[in-house]
């Protein structure tokens, strides 16, 4: 097998046996990037010299670290000291943070090689990676399709074989939905499990950093590295993280899987529904039981989310004003009304933010503005309680919940860009987990007739990531969907 096709576990095995070296692996990945990225455009920044220097440095001190020599691509929303970190927005043009995100520190301490920054929707606002100021990322399975979003770059590069692992962030499905559409595994951990320090905030009460990989053992490995309490994040929970990858087990006999009626209702494409039914059959065949459950407030999740998330986003994005860093408009003051400073703000933000960012800032500002707060934001926080309550009830009847990740497979580039609401609705199956803070994963469970991947979502109680991994592992031990790679990737890169 080509080096670029190996999983992190396979690489570790090979390193141990002296089969290959980090330098050799990075060079093989560069070749893959050279061939594939002009087509799919997953990366927005890749400093090859720095990567090779890091590989060399690691080779000087080869010792047992869990991610020794493993390349990990980073979504451009995580701060990496001295490297451009832009959230795919013009407004952060040229910004190089003077500090590392905590998860980046953890990766470095674990011996990983930071392998470039990946494309995303601007500030993670989107489900298609089309709102990036660098232009869209393409789905490796079908280059006329979107890869999903907002972590589209991080999922596409893992899917295409440019890198074995990546980090993404998930605010309403931004890891799981593109993982589903790119045919890879992506976890949104429990809110509070992974430090958000250095994750450029979209919606602070919903955001989580999560791992993306090609199979469950790799995903579990990366998850356990980044899941550690961080005193710099007051919402990071001081709780032990189990060594997920070592504890993986495929025996799911006796587990009760909840199947929520509302997630298999209208709007779910027949191909997706079919693949899910097959997956449930497989899981039952492995000894699990299924039970029909109800999450009655599901239909309100998108509406609720599109108050909470934009409100927080409008606040988090207020700091991008051209004063300290990033883009500052050079446009001359154009009105006598406000004075030079406010004109600088207005021009900087008008020129620096894309349309979707402006839309969300407007929506959120409106929802928080005087006279609307109670009708919108406060009500949304209450509905959020109802949505959480649904899961509390459901988990009395089952151990985890099985749903599709996305109602459809990857849609066409440009298809939903002009209709924001239809774009928002593509997150309908993933949003509730963020509103409730519970963990969720997406893993491949089939393909539609066009050969596009279909994702299976597993949701569990807070901090029950191990159960999610075990169910996913059992499924992958019994199926081979996760071993399929896009035709593009199979090209000759060696």
């Amino acid at each position, binding site marked *: 097998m080509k080096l670029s096709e190996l999983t992190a576990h396979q690489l570790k095995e090979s390193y141990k046996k002296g089969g290959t070296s980090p330098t050799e692996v990075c060079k093989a990945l560069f070749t893959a990037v050279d061939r594939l990225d002009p087509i799919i455009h997953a990366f927005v920044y890749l400093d090859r010299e720095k990567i090779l220097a890091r590989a060399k440095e690691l080779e000087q001190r080869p010792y047992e670290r869990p991610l020794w020599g493993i390349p990990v691509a980073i979504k451009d929303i995580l701060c990496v000291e001295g490297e451009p970190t832009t959230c795919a927005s013009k407004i952060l043009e040229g910004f190089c943070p003077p500090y590392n995100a905590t998860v980046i520190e953890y990766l470095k301490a674990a011996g990983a090689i930071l392998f470039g920054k990946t494309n995303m929707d601007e500030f993670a606002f989107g489900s298609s990676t089309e709102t990036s100021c660098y232009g869209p990322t393409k789905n490796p399975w079908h280059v006329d399709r979107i890869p999903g979003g907002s972590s589209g770059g991080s999922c596409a590069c893992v899917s295409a074989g440019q890198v074995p692992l990546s980090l993404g962030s998930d605010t309403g499905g931004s890891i799981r939905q593109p993982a589903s559409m790119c045919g890879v595994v992506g976890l949104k951990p429990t809110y509070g499990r992974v430090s958000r320090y250095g994750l450029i905030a979209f919606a602070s*009460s919903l955001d989580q950093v999560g791992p993306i990989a090609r199979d469950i053992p790799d995903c579990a490995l990366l998850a356990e590295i980044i899941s550690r309490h961080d005193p710099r994040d007051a919402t990071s929970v001081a709780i032990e993280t189990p060594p997920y990858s070592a504890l993986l087990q495929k025996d799911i006999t006796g587990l009760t899987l909840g199947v929520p009626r509302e997630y298999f209702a209208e709007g779910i494409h027949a191909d997706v529904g079919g693949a899910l039914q097959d997956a449930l059959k497989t899981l039952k065949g492995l000894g699990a039981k299924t039970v029909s459950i109800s999450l009655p407030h599901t239909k309100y999740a998108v509406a609720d989310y599109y*108050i909470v998330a934009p409100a927080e986003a409008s606040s988090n994005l207020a700091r991008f004003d051209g004063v300290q860093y990033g883009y500052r408009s050079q446009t001359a003051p154009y009105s006598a009304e406000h004075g030079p400073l406010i004109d600088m703000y*207005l021009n900087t933000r008008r020129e620096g933010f894309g349309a979707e960012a402006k839309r969300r800032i*407007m*929506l959120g500002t409106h929802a928080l*503005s005087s006279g609307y707060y109670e009708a919108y934001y406060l009500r949304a926080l209450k509905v959020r*309680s109802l949505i959480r309550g649904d899961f509390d009830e459901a988990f009395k009847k089952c151990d985890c919940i099985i749903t599709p990740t996305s109602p459809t497979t990857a849609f066409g580039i440009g298809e939903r860009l002009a209709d*924001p609401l239809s774009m928002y609705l593509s997150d309908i199956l993933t949003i509730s987990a963020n509103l409730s803070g519970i963990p969720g994963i997406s893993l491949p469970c089939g393909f539609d007739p066009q050969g596009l991947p279909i994702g299976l979502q597993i949701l569990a109680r807070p901090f029950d990531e191990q159960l999610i991994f075990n169910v996913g592992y059992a499924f992958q031990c019994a199926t081979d969907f996760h071993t399929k790679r896009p035709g593009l990737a199979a090209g000759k890169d060696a």
Partner: protein
Amino acid sequence: MPISTEDIRYVAFLARITFAPEELKRFATQLETILEYIEQLEELDVSDVRPTTHVLPVKNVLRKDEKRESLSSEAVMKNAPSKQNAFFKVPRIIQDK
């Protein structure tokens, strides 16, 4: 709740964003569609429901009052779009001098 052009202008200024006239129209239409969709939340009786401000039952997270090293002034100023010595420079606030 329909949103007027006046509202949009007010909100845009609060958020320090401006729109060209045709852009403003498109935004108004899009925002109205989204707000209409959001209106379905009004179906729910939430009078007895407590709001979720934080999803986790974490409380009282405090740090010790210990001084830590600050960034160097070079690191702080490195990204500045405009600076003078170790200060960030911004246009004056008031229109008339």
